[in-house]
């Protein structure tokens, strides 16, 4: 899934290794998310959202438009 993790991390002045250390994952995990090779689990996505203080959909970009609800 496309994401803005690299931009947010750079704005926060963190290296991939720094962010990995904060989250308790390997630097390769952060790199894989940033390069769109791996979609993180929901708990990891939530932790990323808490670290950067932004909602998950500001980090991960999804262009899916939901259909209208039957009662909507």
């Amino acid at each position: 899934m496309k994401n803005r993790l690299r931009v947010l991390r750079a704005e926060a002045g963190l290296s991939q290794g720094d962010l990995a250390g904060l989250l308790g994952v390997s630097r390769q995990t952060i790199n894989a998310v940033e390069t769109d090779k791996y979609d993180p689990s929901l708990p990891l996505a939530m932790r990323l959202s808490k670290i950067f203080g932004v909602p998950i959909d500001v980090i991960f970009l999804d262009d899916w438009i939901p259909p209208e609800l039957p009662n909507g």
Partner: protein
Amino acid sequence: MADPGIRRRLVRAAIGAVVGLALGFGAGEIGLFDWLSAMPGEDIGSTAVAGVLLLLGLFAVIAASSSALYRRMAENYREGDPLDGSVLRYLRTSGVVMLLAAVLLLAPPLAVRYGLTGDAAIAVAAGMAALLAFQVWLNLRVMRTSDELSRAAMAEASVASFWLLQLGLFGWAVLAKLGLAANVSLWTLMTLSTVIYLIVSIVAAIRRGMFA
């Protein structure tokens, strides 16, 4: 001027080639190849796989013996990568798992080669069962302490190799049933399944960027 990373890799490849040549020459001199050629093909195959696992395991255990050594030896290490005691312990345990896998692959052909039959074979089997139980326990520990990217790559490799092996086994079994292919021994199948799992694991790890 070549990229320093590429230059370093080329230098290491050249050193590896010279060391490999010397080791190969030495192995020939002490009669290792004559010793190997007296074994059945399937045993040569499993011994070769065990050799690869032995080298990978030794590399992992030595590299992860200290953070300074790991920084120098690990190709994918970048300054600032998390490298505390628990990371090094995880890497060492992974290395020990590979070393034990090598021993488990080597033991049965060697036992046959050295004529350990009857009661001696029972003792070898009992020893292997204990070693296998220990290896499975360590493997589970590695799985539990891995981060989610490694766990995802392991799960992917397991699923892909299961389907590949199931498909291959079915195809081979059909051909053998129809008399179009030879029957193969369980040891050959086990060696093939190990090789396929190793290849699929490496491909899964590369696809997920684990060597980056």
